[in-house]
């Protein structure tokens, strides 16, 4: 049986449909549920093999991006989520999902304190929608490790993804944490040029196990080359990499 991905929706999340589409393109089954549905039946987490926190403006980002979403998950699903992660099931957080993963303390070091990483406001002081050149670090992260070579070629040829955020500046608690992140090779992506003041130009990180990926750029919005503004080309886009890699991982 094919693996199933649980995709969260509701409370202001708004990229669930595009994210679901990205997983489906890799032949994965998807279950998109409202957060309140999951809270009323947390067993859903046992029935799925992967969890995605899509982008959006959960709770209007009113107390900081991802803040209330993380609080809600902590208040209602803390043990279930911990259990999920300990079963070595992969998790991805994109944009607002990344922000929530940081607030949940799942990145960079799961369950080692909540405050190792914050997502600060862009140095520009406002929201930015822009396609950026990305440098990939092919590390142990299962969200890129198992990708087909054609998708690896694709990111060489089209190393671009869009960012759409107002608070995407990786800010680690202190220099030690940042160094630990670099030493353990947890950075998955950097911007070629710093886009928002992020420490070490970081755009995405993983955990030491490589199961949790948190990224500010939106791969689900780059599934087709026709969506790339800077090139006139057709066919699968660079966003496939992550979903393809995890599909292989889940089939193992």
């Amino acid at each position: 049986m094919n693996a199933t991905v649980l995709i969260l929706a509701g409370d202001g999340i708004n990229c669930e449909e595009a994210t679901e589409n990205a997983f489906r393109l890799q032949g994965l089954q998807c279950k998109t549920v409202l957060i309140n549905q999951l809270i009323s039946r947390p067993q859903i987490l046992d029935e799925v093999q992967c969890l995605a926190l899509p982008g959006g403006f959960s709770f209007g980002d009113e107390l900081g991006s991802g803040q209330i979403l993380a609080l809600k998950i902590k208040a209602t699903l803390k043990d279930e989520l911990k259990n999920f992660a300990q079963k070595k099931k992969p998790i991805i957080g994109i944009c607002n999902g990344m922000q929530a993963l940081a607030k949940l303390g799942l990145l960079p070091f799961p369950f080692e304190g909540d405050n190792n990483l914050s997502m600060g406001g862009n140095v520009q002081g406002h929201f930015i929608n822009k396609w950026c050149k990305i440098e990939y670090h092919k590390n142990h992260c299962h969200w890129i490790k198992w990708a087909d070579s054609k998708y690896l070629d694709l990111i060489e040829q089209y190393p671009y993804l869009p960012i759409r955020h107002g608070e995407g500046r990786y800010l680690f608690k202190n220099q030690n944490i940042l160094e630990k992140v670099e030493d353990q090779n947890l950075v998955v992506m950097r911007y070629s040029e710093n886009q928002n003041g992020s420490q070490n130009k970081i755009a995405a990180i993983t955990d030491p196990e490589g199961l949790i990926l948190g990224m500010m750029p939106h791969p689900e919005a780059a599934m087709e080359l026709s969506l790339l503004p800077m090139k006139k080309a057709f066919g699968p886009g660079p966003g496939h990499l992550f979903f393809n890699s995890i599909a292989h991982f889940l089939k193992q």
Partner: protein
Amino acid sequence: MSPWYKIIRLSKDKFQAEGFLVIFSKQSDQCDEKKLITLKKVFADDNLYQLIISGQEDTGGLRSLLSLPQMVLTSYHLGVTDNKACAASEALSLFGLKCMVSSFKIFKLEEEFNPLIFGNPLVENIRLISALDFKKWMGQCDHTFIANKKINPQVTVFNLDLSENELIKLSAEKCLALNPNELRAICQYFNKNEVREYRKSQGLPIHPTDVEIEIIAQTWSEHCKHKIFNAEIDYREDKIFQHKKFGDIKINGLFKTYIKKTTEEIIAKRKIPWAISLFTDNAGVVQYEEDVLACLKVETHNSPSALDPYGGALTGILGVNRDILGVGLGARPVANFDVFCLTPPHFPQIFEEGEMLVGVCHPQKIIEGVHKGVEDGGNKSGIPTVNGSYFFDADYLAKPLIFVGTLGFMPTVLSEGRRPAEKNIFPGDLIVMAGGKVGRDGIHGATFSSQELDTSLKTELSTVVQIGDPLTQKRLTDFILRARDLNLFRAITDNGAGGLSSSVGEMAQMSGGANLRIDFCPLKTDGLKPYEVVISESQERMTLAIDPLKFEELQKLAKLCAVEISCLGEFTDTQYFSVFYQDEQLASLPLAFLHQPPELKLKAVFKNQNFRSLFRKQIKKEIVKFENGFISLALKTLLNDPNIASKEEWVRRYDHEVGAKTVIKPYASEFNSPNGAGGIKSKEVVYLLGHGLAPKWSLLDPYLMAIRSVDEAIRNIVAAGADPEMISILDNFCTPDPVSSPKNSQGEWQLARLVRANIGLQEVATAYGTPLISGKDSMKNDFSGKNLAGELVKHSVLPTLLVTALGKTQEEFMNKGSFINQDDLVVMIGPGISKNTFVLSSLEENMQTPRNFESFEDLYQIDLKENMNCFKAIYELHKLEVFSSLSDVNEDGALVNLFELLMGSKVGAKLTIDKNKQDLFKLFFASSLATFIGTIGAKKLNIVQDICLSFQIPFLLLGQIQKSYQLDVESSKIAEKINLSELENIYRKAFTPGDK
């Protein structure tokens, strides 16, 4: 007293401070220490903020605040939507803490205190506070909350036994916007014997209750019933008027004659099968592909945006999203677009400061506010903003025109085989309201906007202003679309202007009546009178008709989606719209009377126009001299004009691709050049959105404005690859008051301008074969009041027609940006190569041009058939994939349009043109219709020429692309070399927002 805390988050990296007053309700029985832990959990982030909590030990934050000699404190007035506070309260409730929260902000005072810099006094309390007072203030629980939220059951009777003048006065005082004729009709109705009998039998007073008179006023408002567009009009032309005469016309409704009939004729003549639902629902519905219905709607939110630009634009965009959500059985909003017509940002340089209008926001504040409103409205509800523009003209000082539009998609068949465009309501179905609560905000919005802006009406101002809540709206959207797919409701509409009185009043027509029961209406404020509950336009609400058997399931779904729903009575077949509170009947009006306002009869007289209105003072302009160096000078001047300069810095703050369907983005190409149209991919086709706007032409003749606006909207999307035979257009009119009255001596002339715009619209739509699928009008865009110098003034906007075009293309050959190769050729295609006008071109706005080479008659030399042929030729060329870049030529002139294309690929061009000087400059800087400039591969030249020849369309080879980023122009008399980096620098820096 309940325990309370003030909490401040002070940013660590720059001065930014926001705060919250949290008052715990008595039920929160946690001890204080536990509460503090929760507060920290909710508000703290040690990496980002210093947290200050009143009564707690200071960790340095408070000290640094107190080191400021003075601060500015802002907080919302009671009853104004406070999204931050609502979110905080919801977050605290996750941990079992029930509390009331209000938010505030603290600013540093850098210069002399001017409250307007820090906020809008209409919605916020803005005050200066010293460090000493601040310390005291931190120790006070100073905010009052609305504890009780109950209806004040007071109903008054509206006495009709008054003289006509007294009634007129009363109508104005109560912001009813009823005209004498309508007041007479109301008196007549209530004086009828059978009506008196009926009312007696229902226990209602003889005269209308305030609930009834308000329902009538909202329903009959210009905003809701479009009386002017339905009026009988006698049109004639003044003897002095010499050009383009139509003679005397008796018009039986502008809408019926020029919009509906025109469209019906086009559909019949062209046998169009794809126009699915027009004019009857919230939005126009068309079908361009097998499985998808596309719904399009454009609204204006002018009056609210004049008073509170942020709230006005935000509620505008959320409101038009709800129009789409309420079309048929509900469509998903997939793309937003917005057009702002504003006073130029460098306002004081054009006017004296004293000419600013009292009560109207400063132009700079308006731009910043409406921009932020559209940003939050789209971004936070997950709808991409794909297209739009800023248009600046001094005459928008009277009112900014804020156009907001939304495209929605809906499947062609829903569950159980239901057709999504069909709505049915049966007697006994429940009236259910979903979404936000009802407050005092937004009372009289419909009638207020149906009058000129009078900023002296302080009490009305504060209630018409509203702030939107994108989170509630997003949840509502999640809920509605799920409920639709589960087939849980029979009909839906949004609560916009007129609130429940309009939504229920309109839906009642489907079943034949309604009993609206307001007992369980959720309120957000205390002491609302019944009439206020019924007409409040509080945001984020939809009204549904529900089969009673499905109510329980609907409730379950609502709970999961975190949406509040309430049952407010039932639909009936009594033919009456009645309102009840605690089983007492407060209103009962027959639908036939309510939905048949007396028709207006109006006169329209067209005369020669004032070429420049009062505000169009002569600005010192350089005189055009056709000589070497002029092209460079003209380009530099034009690219520095805020109407032309890059808006990229503004637009990139909008999310333009959430949903992952935006294949044509506002900015594309390797080096970011702007696109004229937006493109949204669906299953099989790409939907193209473009718009046309030519308000300056209304100064000459609104007939020409309409033709030019439609042409621009269409060539916009044709440049992007649209099939010219499958285009739908929308018309949005914003005009000065066209109803003549003692207060409005210009009414007949203004109406004549509107008539001529409609004639133009009819002609061009017919010639291009494009149905008008939806539209809206806003007719009172005037200001009457004082300016800062204390003079009584009256101002009106330029009569403005926004045309929105929706077309389709294929991904394979759409034009999504500039992808020029170094050996490409530069070409121009279209009638504008020879037929073009300097008059009202952007160059003419910026520089003084000789007029003698253009006669008034020249302006009417338009061949619409030739234009349509050109669109068809361009489409053929797109299908052959000949273009590496293409733009339509607009009023900025072909050279500006070419500059933008070159910029996207960072290449130059060498233009060699054999023309005399005057014709050369016109070719470069004049405006034209149905004309395009672009680049093609050198090998494609023959085929392009052949196609142009076969469509009998003018074609001109302008020159070739060169590697160096430079524009060379050569003709027999002129030789210029222009550095494009320098131009780009001007273009990108002339109009940028502050980093706020």
